[in-house]
């Protein structure tokens, strides 16, 4: 009776509420079972099984990020086979340098680094502004590292490797959160985060501050404020819109004080970005996205120098600053012809604008147009072919093609061999192409005409073995490689080269390098509470080293280990071990000797006033191994800090 009554009232409500879908939808009916939904996990949103990717891929997920204790984004890449992480302290202050298979320089990069598909390589020299990431490590969902060239799939600049940060959806972090860290080495960090949303519109706001004193005895402190706003909006059932904007602002200490031209001083760094990405899915196999973003970088570094000697005695004002802006528009479509054949194609337009007053030259913008496509063909249950190419045309060095062919052969259900041959390009940056790199007297000529550089090319050959043990939750990936890198762009007159002259310096296609080696990674997650990751690399670089010491630009051997365990549902303990061989980075580096380093983290969670709290102690270089980074006076010390975090659910 009562039920009938309730039903009557309910039905009466239905009648009244003609537009009241919410009321109608309260009662479970067959509609829930028969409803069609738009495809949420479309092909473009799904990450590929590591045994099916055309290149070797390492994924660093949030669990690994937390376990590593890293507060410096660049430090995370120590865990990835083939990567080295180093730090320079001059010109812009403390800057991490991340490289894959060596060949890394201070302010250049042969890696493509993306945040949610948006490049953060600096448009002037192509380097990565690692200190300018406008959020905290907790905002990352995972980092996909493509270990090898991948122009056809990851675009312009995907030369030696590609790093793609994928940040969390707004709806993954709802509620309010705050954390503060303080410790030795001047570590003073704070982050506030708030996320909310309803009705298909979710947003997250993150603001924070990062500071540390850098290396002991070196004037390389960093102070940075950052903020990011992200919104995920679903205007319709098959559409989603990502809107992001943010920036960083702060100062770096720099200058050795050793010469009048390099006084101790503070430089200002400011970045900003905005990004919009619209995704539409027609059906599970067919979707596209359109993305636009811009990124600006400004370095302000003005100081006066008193010249003691004639003819230019007196006060000279030096502007060591720079400005760069990158604008990029990209479209990509993924469609499956049938379950065994999938196409991805797209194109992009990019403009890089740079101003560098110290180069005394007006720099023309660089325009790059790119078309790319690849096809994934599941020939049978065992064989997967992936073929693709990128055609790039740019306003300075013309057109070129980067093709790629990969074959994945799954010879048992859990073991795969991958054969991959690919060619990739690195377009010279605006400054490489047009600038001259030394502070000379105004009007010093460039050696060679501007715009005469060829893109760097790599021909990469890879054979990989990927094994998965689903029942043990373990994966092993081993890659053997043989890469030829040609037309490496470097500076005439760089240190150690026979024809070294102080002025002028400009970039030329000078060297080649032949890289061979083997690298691998084993990741084991026996339970949700335990994680073990081991990676190791052996690498040999052969080069004539005409302009730089490429042949020693990466350690011969590295081993990294990360182990993490959760106890009693509230304790997290993790330890990281790094062993890196001796090497000497390209550029103005000193030799770095081999070192071992141990990091550790211990955290405890507890319930706290309507939410949860966590206290963590992080130790970097626990045993105080005094190894050096880029320069001999950049000596690593033990550093420890405490982090307190509080999260209140919505």
């Amino acid at each position, binding site marked *: 009776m009562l039920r009938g009554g309730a*039903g009557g009232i*309910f039905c009466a409500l239905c009648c009244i509420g003609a537009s009241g879908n919410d009321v109608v939808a309260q009662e479970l009916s067959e509609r*829930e*079972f028969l409803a069609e939904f738009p495809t949420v996990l479309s092909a473009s949103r799904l990450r590929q099984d590591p045994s099916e990717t055309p290149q070797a891929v390492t994924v660093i997920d949030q669990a690994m990020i937390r376990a590593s204790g890293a507060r410096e984004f660049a430090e995370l890449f120590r865990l990835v086979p083939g990567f080295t992480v180093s730090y320079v302290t001059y010109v812009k202050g403390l800057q991490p340098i991340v490289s894959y298979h060596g060949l890394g320089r201070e302010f250049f990069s042969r890696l493509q680094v993306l945040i949610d598909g948006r490049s953060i390589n600096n448009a002037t020299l192509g380097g990565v502004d690692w200190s300018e990431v406008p959020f905290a490590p907790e905002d990352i969902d995972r980092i996909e590292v493509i270990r090898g060239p991948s122009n056809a799939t990851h675009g312009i600049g995907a030369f030696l490797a590609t790093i793609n940060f994928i940040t969390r959806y707004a709806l993954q972090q709802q509620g309010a959160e705050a954390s503060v860290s303080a410790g030795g080495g001047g570590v003073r960090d704070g982050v506030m985060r708030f996320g909310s949303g309803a009705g298909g519109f979710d947003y997250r706001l993150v603001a924070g501050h990062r500071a540390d004193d850098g290396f002991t005895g070196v004037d390389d402190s960093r102070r940075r404020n950052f903020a990011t706003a992200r919104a995920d909006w679903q205007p319709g059932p098959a559409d989603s819109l990502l809107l992001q904007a943010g920036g960083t602002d702060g100062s770096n200490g720099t200058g050795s004080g050793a010469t009048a031209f390099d006084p101790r001083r503070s430089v200002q760094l400011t970045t900003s970005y905005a990004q919009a990405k619209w995704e539409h899915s027609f059906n599970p196999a067919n979707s596209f996205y359109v993305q636009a973003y811009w990124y600006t970088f400004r370095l302000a570094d003005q100081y006066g120098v008193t010249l003691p000697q004639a003819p230019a005695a007196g006060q000279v004002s030096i502007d060591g600053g720079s400005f760069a802006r990158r604008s990029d528009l990209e479209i990509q479509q993924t469609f499956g012809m049938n379950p065994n054949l999938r196409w991805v194609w797209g194109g992009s337009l990019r403009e890089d604008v740079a101003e560098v007053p110290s180069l005394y030259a007006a720099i023309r913008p660089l325009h790059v147009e790119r078309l790319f496509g690849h096809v994934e063909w599941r020939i049978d249950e065992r064989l997967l072919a992936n073929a693709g190419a990128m055609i790039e045309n740019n306003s300075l060095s013309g057109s070129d093609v980067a093709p790629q062919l990969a074959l994945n052969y799954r010879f048992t259900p859990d073991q795969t061999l991958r054969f991959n041959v690919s060619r990739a390009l690195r377009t010279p940056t605006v400054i490489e192409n047009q600038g001259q790199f030394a502070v000379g007297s105004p009007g010093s000529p460039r050696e060679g005409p501007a715009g005469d550089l060829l893109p760097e090319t790599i021909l990469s050959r890879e054979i990989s073995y990927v094994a998965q043990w*689903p029942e043990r939750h373990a994966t092993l990936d081993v890659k053997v490689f043989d890469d030829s890198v040609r037309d490496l762009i470097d500076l005439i007159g760089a240190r150690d080269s026979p024809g070294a002259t102080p002025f002028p310096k400009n970039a030329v296609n000078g060297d080649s390098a032949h890289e061979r080696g083997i690298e691998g990674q084993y990741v084991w997650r026996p339970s949700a509470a335990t994680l073990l990751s081991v990676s190791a690399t052996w690498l040999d670089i052969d080069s004539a080293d005409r302009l730089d010491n490429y042949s020693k630009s990466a350690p011969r051997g590295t081993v990294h280990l990360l182990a993490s365990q959760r106890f009693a549902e509230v304790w997290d303990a993790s330890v990281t071990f790094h062993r890196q061989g001796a090497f000497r980075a390209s550029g103005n580096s000193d030799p770095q000797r081999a070192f071992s380093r141990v990091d550790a983290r211990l955290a405890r969670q507890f319930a706290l006033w309507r939410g949860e709290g966590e206290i963590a102690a992080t130790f970097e270089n626990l045993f105080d191994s005094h190894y050096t980074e880029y320069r001999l006076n950049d000596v690593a010390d033990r550093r420890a800090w405490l982090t307190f975090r509080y999260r209140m*659910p919505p």
Partner: protein
Amino acid sequence: MSAPPAFAAPARRVPRRRRAGLAFAAILLAWLAPTIVSAQVLVVLSDESSGYQAVVAELRTGLHGLRDGELRLDNIIAARLADVDAATFSRYELVVSVGLAAAQAVASRGAATALPPTLCLLIPRQGFDRLALPRDNAGERRVTAVFIDQPLSRQLDLLRLALPESHRVGVILGPSSTALGDELRAGAKARSLDVATATVGERSALYPALQTLLPRSDLLLLLPDPVAINADTLYGLLLASYRARVPVVGFSEGLLKAGSLVALFSTPQQQGAQGAEIARRALAHDGGLPAPQYPREFTVRVNASVARSLGLRVPDEQELQAALGARHGEGDATREAGGATHGGPP
């Protein structure tokens, strides 16, 4: 007493031309009905959408040839049922309702007139249990159903078969599905599964609930609930689960296509065929109806691209279906519905 009035059934918008046609059909039916002595089966549809039509097609096929081909199936949509007069209505040998709204419309007729033997198809068990049905005559069942839902035991067995490594089952319970909580926990315990539930009272509470549930779950089992699982919440639910590497097990083909790893459901055809068999027996045995039951035939589907992406090795569909079928045969399907005997003998 206060049974839901038939006119209140939420009908979908019908194009004007079709509406005119339906009205004409209804008038024609009302006019013809009293003159036809052998009015036999009345099929009441919630509306004209294709899912319902598929059931009718199966019924037609299943009843074909009965009574020397003289058996007639009359079709009507729920919103027009009130136009059928009481005498005509009570002369039907069997009424088959397709959809919840149709069942509610038929039940409301039952308050005033004697209800012919009634078979409800495409109806959730909960909706059937809540129907205001007249009491049965002693020893004779007047109303039965083939539920659209799958028995929980079958869903839990599927989890063990498809993802044997996953023991921690996360379940979001909404206002409708919360009633299943105890049965779920008992069934899980019997299969050595640990169930973690989060109860949400409104849509906006889903994501916060997921944030606490996903870290404690190896997989997420979806139970039908219009508040917790709907077109608005599904997008975030699937994305958040995927990002947490927690596979989702769904209860419909729509959920599978959207991004669930596995789905267990019965198609309208499968339910129509089972309905036709019940109707056949009922017509042959002069109104004897079996107990309300879960669908006997079911479909297991696996989303291969999601499985690959999550790095999961899931047995193929046929294998899962065969293994699950071996445990959940015809007898089981009826027995499992033992708890749902609304309108049955005490």
